[in-house]
Each structure stands twice: as structure tokens, then as C-alpha cells.
């Protein structure tokens, strides 16, 4: 009886604290309309109509998706070789490398993004170095561009790409590659036929871990990004804090959530499978 009652009590208790994040918008959204009394019925659908009709929202959604997708690909292209190199290095140096990858993650995310302003701005480190070396004679416009946002996202989320890839690549059976070499496959071919397909779960997990938060990213585009093309996270908080239009901001949040529902579910399924696998 004790074993039955306690877990249920715990689940019951915990389910309360969990309901909080899992209810984004839904109930509070409706309640909000009830509070604003006169605006109840009319405003309700209008928020979503605004989303559909105003091309601003459509273009920010598309832009956010583009930025996130592009940064995810860049992250993969940089992260995969790094994870591979760590997984194939000597076991003693492996932990050192892993620590070097994780260390920046423990330091403030905000300050790491801030560091890039100093590098990228017109009289920043990169421009000053290139100018003094005589490679360019006009400072490049680097800050407040798409490029700066890509760099910021790749920089901030690189550990999230490397770690799942590493934990996958580390488990590979190297004798498979030896067998392939014995059978005459060249290393490049062996990589594409064996290593890459085997590492697909790691690739998917890493990409989702970068892509999902990147779509809703708010800090990076507002510090490094363009001012004429906003990302959805920026629009959302501008609606919220600037225009104080909470209902539209909520509608934006719901739309963003719907957009990301599929990738989030995919990630959860992956996580579940990993846990089951480690239990066996």
C-alpha cells in the first residue's frame, strides 16, 4: 500500500509543478481574454488573423527557420569533424578535449555572445587585425548582419552538437573499418558507407538540439543581428514589452510552439530510446 500511495502522491504533487510549462498559452490565454471583458470574442481570432495577414509575421517566421536551419548545418559541419577527432584520439587526451568543449558551456551564454560584439564591430578585433596586416583597407561590416547571427548561434550551440555526436562516435566498433580497409575500401568510402550511417542518431539529436532553440532565439539576434529583419523571438518580446499586446504575443508563441512541435516530439522520442538503451 505504501508503495502504491507514495508514488501517486508524488506524481500528483509533481504534476502540479509540471503543468506550469506544459500549459503555455492554452488556459492562461483563454483566461486572459476573460479578464479583458469587452474584447473577449472579437479579439480572440483576430490575433491569429493578424499573424496570417500581416506579412511581417510570415517573413519573420520564414527568416527564423532559414537562420536556424543554416546555423544547424554550419554547426554540424564544424561539430562532426571535432567530435570525430575527439572520439578517435587517445583515451587519456579524450577527457581533456571534452572538458575544453564543455568549459565554455559553463560560462555565461550572454557574455560569450557579448564577446563577439568586440570581435565583429567596425573598430573591433577582426577589422583592426585585418587592417593592420594590410589585407583590407576599408573596415568590413560584420556586426548586425546575418553572418554575425550565424556565428553567434554556431558558437553558442556547438557543444550541444558535439556532445551527442561524440557519445555516438565513441561507441563505434573500429574493427568494421578495418574490415572495410581489408576488403579494399578507401577510407573516404568507408567513412560514408559505415561511420556516417552508424552515427545518424547522433547527427539527428545534435541537429535538433541546435535547431529547436535557435528558431526561438532572442538574445543572439538582438545583440548581433540585423535591425531591418527580425527573428520571431525578437518580435515576440517586442510585442510583449514594447507594444504591450499580450494577446498577439501569445498567438505568436502558440504559432511558434506548433511549428516546433514535430521536432520537439522527435527529440523526446530519441531521448526516450537512449534511456531505454542505457538501461539494458
Amino acid at each position, binding site marked *: 500500500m505504501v508503495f502504491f500511495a507514495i508514488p501517486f502522491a*508524488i506524481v500528483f504533487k509533481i504534476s502540479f509543478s509540471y503543468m506550469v510549462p506544459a500549459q503555455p498559452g492554452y488556459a492562461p490565454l483563454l483566461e486572459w481574454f476573460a479578464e479583458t471583458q469587452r474584447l473577449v470574442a472579437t479579439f480572440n481570432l483576430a490575433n491569429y488573423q493578424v499573424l496570417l495577414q500581416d506579412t511581417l509575421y510570415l517573413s519573420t517566421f520564414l527568416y527564423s527557420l532559414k537562420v536556424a536551419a543554416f546555423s544547424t548545418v554550419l554547426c554540424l559541419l564544424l561539430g562532426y569533424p571535432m567530435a570525430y577527432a575527439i572520439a578517435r584520439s587517445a583515451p587519456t587526451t579524450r577527457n581533456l578535449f571534452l572538458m575544453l568543449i564543455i568549459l565554455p558551456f559553463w560560462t555565461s551564454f550572454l557574455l560569450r555572445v557579448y564577446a563577439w560584439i568586440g570581435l565583429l564591430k567596425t573598430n573591433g578585433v577582426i577589422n583592426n587585425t585585418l587592417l593592420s596586416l594590410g589585407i583590407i583597407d576599408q573596415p568590413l561590416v560584420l556586426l548586425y548582419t546575418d553572418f554575425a547571427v550565424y556565428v553567434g548561434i554556431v558558437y553558442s550551440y556547438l557543444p550541444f552538437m558535439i556532445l551527442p555526436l561524440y557519445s555516438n562516435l565513441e561507441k563505434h566498433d573500429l574493427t568494421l573499418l578495418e574490415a572495410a580497409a581489408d576488403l579494399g575500401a578507401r577510407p573516404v568510402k568507408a567513412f560514408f558507407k559505415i561511420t556516417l550511417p552508424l552515427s545518424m542518431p547522433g547527427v539527428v539529436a545534435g541537429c535538433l538540439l541546435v535547431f529547436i532553440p535557435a528558431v526561438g532565439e532572442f538574445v543572439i539576434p538582438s545583440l548581433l543581428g540585423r535591425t531591418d529583419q527580425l527573428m520571431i523571438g525578437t518580435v515576440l518580446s517586442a510585442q510583449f514589452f514594447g507594444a504591450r499586446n499580450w494577446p498577439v504575443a501569445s498567438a505568436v508563441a502558440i504559432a511558434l510552439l506548433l511549428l516546433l512541435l514535430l521536432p520537439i516530439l522527435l527529440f523526446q522520442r530519441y531521448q526516450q530510446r537512449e534511456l531505454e538503451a542505457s538501461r539494458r
Partner: protein
Amino acid sequence: MNDRGWFRNSILGLGLAFLYIPILSMMFFSFNNSRLVTVWDAENSPTLRWYVRLFENEQLLGAAWISIKIAALSASGAAILGTLAGLVLTRFGPFRGRALLSAMTTAPLVMPEVIMGIAMLLLFVALEQMIGWPAGRGLLTITIAHVTFTMAYVTVVVQSRLAGFDDALEEAALDLGAKPATVFFKITLPLIMPAIVSGWLLAFTLSWDDVVISQFVSGPGSSTLPMEIFSRVRRGVSPDINALATIMVLIVATGVVASTIWMKRQERKRLLEEQMARSDTP
């Protein structure tokens, strides 16, 4: 494969350079005398001027104190609730709502922060109107919001630790007549303690670092350090932020290196003891 070693090492070197050059350059320029931050003033540098300025800045120091309080409180809350959730999910088999609980646990891991922030705020507003609690927004609402999003990390860490050890230990204790509560405090809890500790540290760091969610659920007079930094940084680089960043990076780096060395030493001690135990037995 050895002829490829140079290629792998150079990629790794480039990647690590990419990770560390921004941080190092930020630290380097914190000793620069010039207001322009990234233009090196060779005559008057290096200087500790900005560090002195930093410790005279009441506003930043106050925000740092608020952040420490919130981070410690919410990490402790997250450690307790996250451990309970982890236990329930791994130990109690299939029950009603297990899938739901499990999905809710991992959701905050990937949920964009702006959605979390807006959801928490609307919930607090609705609660306040319904039951009058929490009255207004401030330290309490930030702490609750931080507990909610950081406990997911604790749960995952505890879950993977629980999945890693043999529940035969618990069963054995039960067979020997120990009460469930005794089993929990004598066996389960000590075994998962390392996971709880690292979960707590992770929660502390995440809470200490969070700007987006705090911004949504904070009220007047409860600006955390990241919020303060964010509003300053939006206006461009400023040398005292470089000094602040340098201090924070050094604290974290020392902490991580120290804990790694400590864990290595514990490991070596354990191995040595095992060897001695083995050589003792004939």
C-alpha cells in the same frame, strides 16, 4: 589511418580556437585603458581601472547578489523535485500518466525560452487574479520559473544515473527486512548523490545565466545580473562588462578544473584501495 592524424588535429585545433579566441580576447581587453575597448591603448595599459569601477558599481553588485540568491534557491528546489521525478520515472514502472510526466519533464530542455517565459508570466498573472498569489512579480516568481525549467535537467541527470545502477541492491535490502524508507535513505540516495550534486550545479549555472525567462517574470526592483548585463550590452561594448566577464570566466574555470582534479584523485584513491584489498586476500 595515421596519415590523417594531422587533419583531425588541425580541425580540432581550429574548433577549439573558435571556441576560445572570443573569450580570451574579451579578457585581454578588460585590461585596456581605452574607452573604445578594442583599440589597445599601449601607453596606459594594462590597467585595473575597470575592475575598480566594477566594484564601485552598486547596481551591478546588487544584481549579482539577487542572482546568487535566486540561483541557490531554485537549484535546491530543482534538485529536490527533479530527483523525485527521476525516481518516479525510472523506479515505479508503468503507471497512469507516465508518458505525460515523462514528456513534460523533457519539454523544457528544448522549449524555446521565449515560450517558457511568456507561459510562466501568463500563469502567474492568472494565478494572481484567481487566488491572489503570487502577489506581484519579483524574486519569488523568478525563482519558481527557474525551478520549473532547471528541474528538467536534474531529472535527466538523475534518471540516467538510476538507469545505470543495479536495482538488485535495493531488492536485496528489502529482502533483508529493511523498510522502504530505510532503503531509500541508506542505499538509493547515497548512490544517486553524485547525480544530484551535478544536477544542482547545472541548475545553479542555468539559473545564474538566464536572461530571457527572468525578463518575462521579473518585476520592479528584481533585476538579475544577466538582465542588468543585457540592458547594458545592448548599448554596445563597455569595458567594465569585460572586467566582469573576466572575473566570471576565471571563477568558473577554476571551479571546473578543481572539481575535475578532485574527481580524478578520488578515482585513483578508489583504485588503490581496491588493489590493496585484493593483495590483502591470500
